[in-house]
């Protein structure tokens, strides 16, 4: 037995060592960041410069079916099923033209993630060299006045054996609740034809919208802004399969500026932005846009005292649960923003939300 091996997990803080000089923090940071995986929405995004590199890199999809790949990408364990997540059989392409088929779809009240496969893709379609080659053309919801507010399509994988491209299509939709079906046209714009406006219509996809579930905990509890001496009220938590949303009532920006007086913009901006800087800026260096952004963001921080309680008695705290705090928009009657879960949640297993020392029970929203 080696003595040095015994010290593998030994916590040693007592011995004075001669400090090393000349090491560069900047260089270490660069080295670290170079090795960090690129992340977007919790998934690895492959950005590969050349078609050949892409083909070889994404050939890793071989061995996993399109459905397995899509499930892994959406953040659902292989053996799990959710009412919000529906898988479909592929349609067999009739000819050798590129055709689109539905693989699976995840629906929540605010957003849907639809996985599509494109069979017989042209060689350029396998490439991610273009920034925005795929797009949605016409889209309609039936019977509903649902409105598309945002759309983003990204290539997830290319399966060399099946000669199939897997796409992830994120749709942000307002008033989705009443919709039964959603139909949209998938389009592709070759990079060498962007300037003359040529776009290929790959096909139209129709997806059934399942009955959507949403659980809400009504809260009405105070929340102290961590940067400013201002208080808001947390009105409710809404939980969906892929995210939760916080609705707050907060003083308006103008009202807070009025209360702070002449140097309000500098005070607000410095309170937030200087937290992230090594060398604090003088408040007078900030303008009204800095202040507005700072005020908006100052409410969107993860909170100490927040957890989700499950029916089986387990509790998961915010930092273990939410992967990315991405504000989900909306500015009506205060502030409403959301956080995405790193893994999809089965709403049937959730019991309550724990916040500020109190438990608030989640109830289905009819």
């Amino acid at each position, binding site marked *: 037995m080696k003595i040095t091996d015994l010290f593998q997990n030994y916590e040693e803080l007592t011995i004075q060592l001669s400090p090393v000089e000349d090491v560069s923090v900047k260089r270490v940071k660069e080295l670290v960041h170079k090795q960090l995986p690129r992340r977007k929405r919790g998934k690895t995004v492959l950005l590969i410069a050349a078609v050949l590199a892409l083909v070889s890199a994404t050939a890793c999809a071989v061995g996993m079916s399109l459905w397995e790949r899509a499930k892994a990408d959406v953040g659902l364990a292989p053996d799990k099923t959710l009412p919000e997540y529906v898988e479909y059989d592929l349609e067999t392409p009739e000819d050798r033209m590129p055709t689109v088929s539905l693989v699976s779809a995840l629906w929540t009240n605010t957003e849907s993630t639809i996985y599509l496969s494109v069979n017989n893709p042209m060689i350029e379609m396998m490439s991610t060299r273009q920034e925005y080659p795929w797009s949605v053309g016409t889209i309609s919801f039936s019977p509903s006045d649902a409105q598309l507010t945002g759309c983003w399509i990204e290539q997830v994988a290319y399966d060399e054996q099946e000669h199939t491209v897997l796409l992830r299509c994120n749709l942000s939709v307002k008033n989705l609740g009443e919709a039964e079906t959603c139909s949209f046209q998938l389009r592709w714009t070759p990079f060498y034809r962007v300037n003359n406006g040529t776009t290929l219509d790959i096909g139209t996809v129709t997806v059934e919208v399942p009955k959507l579930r949403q659980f809400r905990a009504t809260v009405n509890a105070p929340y102290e802004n961590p940067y400013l001496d201002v208080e808001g009220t947390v009105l409710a938590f809404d939980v969906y399969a892929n995210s939760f949303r916080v609705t707050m009532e907060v003083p308006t920006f103008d009202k807070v500026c009025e209360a702070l007086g002449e140097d309000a913009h500098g005070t607000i901006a410095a309170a937030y932005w200087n937290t992230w800087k090594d060398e604090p800026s003088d408040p007078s260096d900030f303008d009204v846009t800095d202040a507005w952004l700072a005020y908006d963001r100052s409410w969107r921080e993860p909170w100490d005292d927040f957890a989700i309680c499950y029916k089986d008695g387990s509790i998961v705290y915010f930092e*273990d649960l*939410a992967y990315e705090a991405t504000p989900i928009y909306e500015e009506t009657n205060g502030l409403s923003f959301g956080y995405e879960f790193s893994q999809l949640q089965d709403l049937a297993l959730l019991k309550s939300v724990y916040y500020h020392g109190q438990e608030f029970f989640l109830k289905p929203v009819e």
Partner: protein
Amino acid sequence: MEEARMLRRLKAGKTDALDALIEQYNGYVCTIIRTVLGAQGTLEDVEELASDVFLAIWNHADALWSGKVKAYIGATARNRARSFLRSLGPMEMDLDELPLASPETPEGDALNREQQQLLRAAVDAMGEPDREIFLRYYYYYQTTTEIAALLGRTPENIRLRLCRGRERLKNHLQKEGIV
């Protein structure tokens, strides 16, 4: 950035917290790595190993607890530097072997929390300056000549104290049933 807040953000995958961690602990990490590497390894090696340490922390942020960050980072830095030394070839530590069976641990390598406490007690029980000499030699891989120069003693005296420390450690570990 305040530690608890930094940890929360680190666990949530926020790179600004990683940057704050690097700024705060880079000097400490590099000092440990430089000490363990001694004359071996360049400044670039130190920086690369430091980046490995911070990446490991980033990938295992869940293992970090407020109040224990520095100790955890220090242990990670020491172990990374040690692995690097091992990759260069066999390490000459003629006093490293204890004539005892390996501890009974599930993985066969790291001691569990309770065993770590007993090890700490055994090391603390050596008293000064034996404890410091022991840790400098076995934890930080400083040579007997380096330790002698640092503590104003002769290398022979250091070796003598290390032998004594080894005996005490062996007895303590046997008595406590760790080995």
